[in-house]
């Protein structure tokens, strides 16, 4: 059985159906008698809705209904919930405008849905949407952090003074001031962490229906957490008990955190399905994804590092200002003021900290979770700062890091953010990456680049990230007489290969053929739990699979004792069979199940883990720059990843590769721009927004280090989904800056495009 077990690079179970076009993404679903939805969206960044006239639209062929915010309000439909627990600028509970699925009085960003047309076909719905006449009265709008924070800025919400939706403070400012006062050197950085669009290749979509007889809604959608969406839709929006809503999810064409929440369009489709008495089908166009699918990042960050003369860190001062968009619903604010700060001290021992973070409201689309969610911003900040300090001190950046790493003997280690690292051997990781990336051989390679007329730069990042979000997950395991083990879970596959990984864990633990294991997911009726986000699917979900398997064996042992008329302590389990020790009297697991009531052995497991896991990693990147054109090429990229115990190295490598690709996208290509005057989204299609292509990226040399398993879960695994994204961005930018530092260039704003490099070189030459 070990052939398919833990640690094997076996190919994925998901692949065959996806390779033959047999996957079922939400838009592939066509229900009998379904209608199609098209949204009417605000063309203004901020405007009062004066009136909506659907007379013309309603006369067009195929149009079934036109619904507006007023209709939803009249039917008591709620707004998208705000996360509790955060405080605003005045120290009161966070407050932000209510985010109704269709805007009622005011539209607050370009692209916000204000009405929906339901028609027989998608084309007819789109035609009619163009004929819905909305009278807007434009209001002064804000799209940037700078404008939102400016003195005398328009206040976008009465209960958000200074446009601050939420703010936090961590550390001890006085102690930090004292550390800075005694410092031999202070290094400083300040830059934007630009807004990104997640661009899952599958756009969002929803097919909703309402069954009059049972009074139940069924929503098929593309999301990462069916049970979570069920609750928000039922309790928050439709105001019905959770059991009146079922959320069904098929294949998900990429999530990246962007599909972790209910969207206004989903809610409208569910509402409209009841209203028109027919199923409602909506598929977002790519433009709608750009306008109204959650964005990521968008922070302005400043940090200062106090060091002694030997390069030992004495203190860290950080100011984070995030633009969360027009509403406080979803995770936008919590990412800025709570999640990112968790990792701000990185893998370093930092004795004094003063961190303040603010989340600002603006008239832009909402910022939510995007691969890493706060952690890429924080690690970008600390790793850029470490390189700046190394340059200031004329020290090897690897050496500066080495002097400040938290030592393995200090584990478990508590940071000044109050976070506890259970495990990690950072000096060992550093030693290994320097070997793997041939850090010492760099000068020779630099010489070779120089001979070609190219500037070469390199950088190292040593970092970790926080995973888990909620530290438990429930699963049900059933051994059935038909010879199958079925596991029901709220975790959701979206490309990360958890189906395969779970089967590996179960087949090894239960010592049965993998073909006997089925993972049932994507249905709030069959499983309740948190779902897939924050790199939790393996270290928590996978642990649950292992624990459920072990509990199944224990339960089976006692049932086998009864069946074989022996004491359960004499029952052994091996090869899918219980036997009485020292005899050949035994019973097969599935036969045993067949003898139980309901012909099954069923286990409900609530897997709790003792906090977040802390995957950590080292990245080394080398770049070559053509000084004539500013074109940057990544010529060597190496990572060493401590993700604890590896279940499937093939899948881990894929997660890291894909993660780095998104990091490179942020570092060199991607940027989301709103026109500061009009608030129009200038980068609203894949023609304006540069997602990395195959020829933009290099080969990555990825290695795992399994010497430090995670201590807080039975599997020993740490999360991996976001790791590459968290560390890749600073590594690439630091490498580029390293190449340009000899010309006096200390910073380049992301994305570091050829134009920016070329301009910087020109300016440097002129100076």
């Amino acid at each position, binding site marked *: 059985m070990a052939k398919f077990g833990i640690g094997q690079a076996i*190919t*994925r179970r*998901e*692949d*065959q159906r*996806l*390779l*033959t*076009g*047999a*996957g*079922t*993404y939400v*838009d*592939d679903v*066509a229900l009998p008698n379904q209608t199609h939805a098209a949204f009417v969206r605000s063309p203004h960044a901020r405007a009062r809705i004066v009136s909506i006239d659907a007379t013309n639209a309603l006369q*067009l*062929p195929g149009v079934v209904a036109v619904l507006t915010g007023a209709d939803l309000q009249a039917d008591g439909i709620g707004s998208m919930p705000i996360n509790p627990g955060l405080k605003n600028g005045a120290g009161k509970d966070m407050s932000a405008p209510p985010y109704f699925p269709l805007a009622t009085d005011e539209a607050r960003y370009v692209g916000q849905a204000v009405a929906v047309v339901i028609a027989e076909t998608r*084309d*007819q719905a789109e*035609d009619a949407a163009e004929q819905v006449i909305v009278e807007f009265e434009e209001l002064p709008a804000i799209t940037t952090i700078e404008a939102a924070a400016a003195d005398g800025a328009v206040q976008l919400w009465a209960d958000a003074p200074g446009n601050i939706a939420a703010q936090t403070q961590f550390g001890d400012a006085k102690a930090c001031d004292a550390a800075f006062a005694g410092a031999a050197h202070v290094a400083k950085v300040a830059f934007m962490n630009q807004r990104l669009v*997640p*661009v*899952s*290749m*599958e756009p969002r979509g929803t097919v909703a229906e309402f069954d009059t007889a049972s009074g139940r809604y069924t929503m098929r959608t593309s999301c990462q957490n069916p049970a979570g969406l069920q609750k928000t839709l039922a309790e928050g929006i439709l105001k019905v008990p959770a059991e009146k809503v079922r959320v069904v999810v098929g*294949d*998900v*064409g*990429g*999530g*990246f955190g962007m599909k972790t929440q209910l969207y206004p369009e989903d809610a409208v489709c569910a509402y409209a399905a009841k209203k028109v008495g027919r199923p409602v089908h909506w*598929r977002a*166009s*790519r433009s709608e994804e750009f306008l109204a699918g959650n964005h990521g990042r968008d922070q302005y960050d400043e940090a200062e590092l106090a060091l002694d003369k030997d390069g030992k860190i004495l203190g860290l001062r950080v100011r984070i200002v995030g633009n969360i968009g027009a509403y406080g619903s979803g995770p936008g604010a919590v990412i800025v003021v709570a999640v990112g700060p968790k990792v701000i001290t990185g893998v370093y021992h930092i004795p004094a900290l003063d961190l303040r973070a603010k989340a600002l409201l603006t008239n832009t689309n909402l910022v939510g979770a995007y691969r890493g969610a706060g952690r890429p911003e924080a690690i970008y900040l600390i790793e850029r700062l470490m390189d700046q300090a190394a340059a200031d001190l004329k020290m090897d950046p690897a050496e500066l890091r080495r002097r400040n790493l938290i030592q393995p003997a200090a584990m478990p280690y508590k940071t000044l953010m109050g976070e506890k690292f259970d495990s990690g051997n950072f000096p060992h990781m550093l030693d290994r990456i320097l070997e793997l990336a041939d850090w010492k051989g760099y000068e020779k390679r630099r010489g070779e680049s120089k001979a070609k007329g190219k500037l070469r730069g390199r950088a190292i990042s040593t970092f970790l990230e926080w995973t888990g979000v909620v530290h438990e997950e429930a699963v049900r395991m059933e051994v059935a007489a038909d010879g199958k083990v079925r596991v029901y879970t709220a975790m959701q596959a*979206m*490309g*990360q*290969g958890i189906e395969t990984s779970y089967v590996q864990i179960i087949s090894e633990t239960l010592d049965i053929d993998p073909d006997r294991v089925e993972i049932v997911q994507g249905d709030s009726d069959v499983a309740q739990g948190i779902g897939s986000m924050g790199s939790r699917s393996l270290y928590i979900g996978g642990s649950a699979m292992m624990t459920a398997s072990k509990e199944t064996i224990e339960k089976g042992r006692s049932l086998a004792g009864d069946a074989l008329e022996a004491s359960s302590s004499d029952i052994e389990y091996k090869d899918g069979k219980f036997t009485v020790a020292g005899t050949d009297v035994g019973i097969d697991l599935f036969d045993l199940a067949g003898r139980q009531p309901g012909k099954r052995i069923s286990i409900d497991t609530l897997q709790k883990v003792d906090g977040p896991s802390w995957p950590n990693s080292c990245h080394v990147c080398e770049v070559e720059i053509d000084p004539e054109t500013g074109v940057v090429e990544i010529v060597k990229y190496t990572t060493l990843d401590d993700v604890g115990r590896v279940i499937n190295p*093939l899948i881990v*490598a*894929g997660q890291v*590769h*894909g*993660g*780095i*690709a*998104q990091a490179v996208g942020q570092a060199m290509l991607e940027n989301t721009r709103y026109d500061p005057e009009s608030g129009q989204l200038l980068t609203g*299609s*894949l*023609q304006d927004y540069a*997602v*990395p*292509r*195959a*020829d*933009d*990226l290099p*080969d*990555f040399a990825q290695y795992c280090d399994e010497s430090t398993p995670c201590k807080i879960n039975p599997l020993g695994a740490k999360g991996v989904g976001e790791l590459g994204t968290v560390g890749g961005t600073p590594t690439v930018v630091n490498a580029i800056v390293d190449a340009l530092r000899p010309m006096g260039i200390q910073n380049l704003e992301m994305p570091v495009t050829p134009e920016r490099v070329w301009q910087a070189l020109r300016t440097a030459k002129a100076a």
Partner: protein
Amino acid sequence: MAGKTTLTIGIEVNGEQVTHAVEPRTSLADFLRDTLGLTGTNLGCEHGVCGACTVEIDGAPARSCITLAVACDGASVRTTEGLADDPVAEELRAAFKAHHALQCGYCTSGMLVTARDIVMRLPEADEARVRVELAGNLCRCTGYMGVVNAIVAVLAARSPHPRQDP
């Protein structure tokens, strides 16, 4: 504006002759997916940039989202479903599995069509060339390494002059 006008087209899809009335504005992608139920072809952008919707038209890869169905009157179209029994596609599918060339699978149908074209048209292509050829197909999940390695592996396996490992 949507009129009632439709045109009748005759088109060969995955080896079968189909005659159907279509609106002039209907894209080939929508025709394949909605009218014929061939949902293996995915739509990622509907503006011709991402390559998810790539199918073969008369033997060459093309973007079905910006090709009008009426323009395919008399043409022969092959989608991922039509590659089920194709031996080159079969080699590619095996290589895609072995090299973990797909995660969510949304880009995969288009990738396979493009990959098959690279293998058939450019038997001597090296990794750099494969990357350039693949640049019309976006993948947000894999970082492309698995896809590139899979194609390079199929090229190598098919080569009459096996390359020496460097």
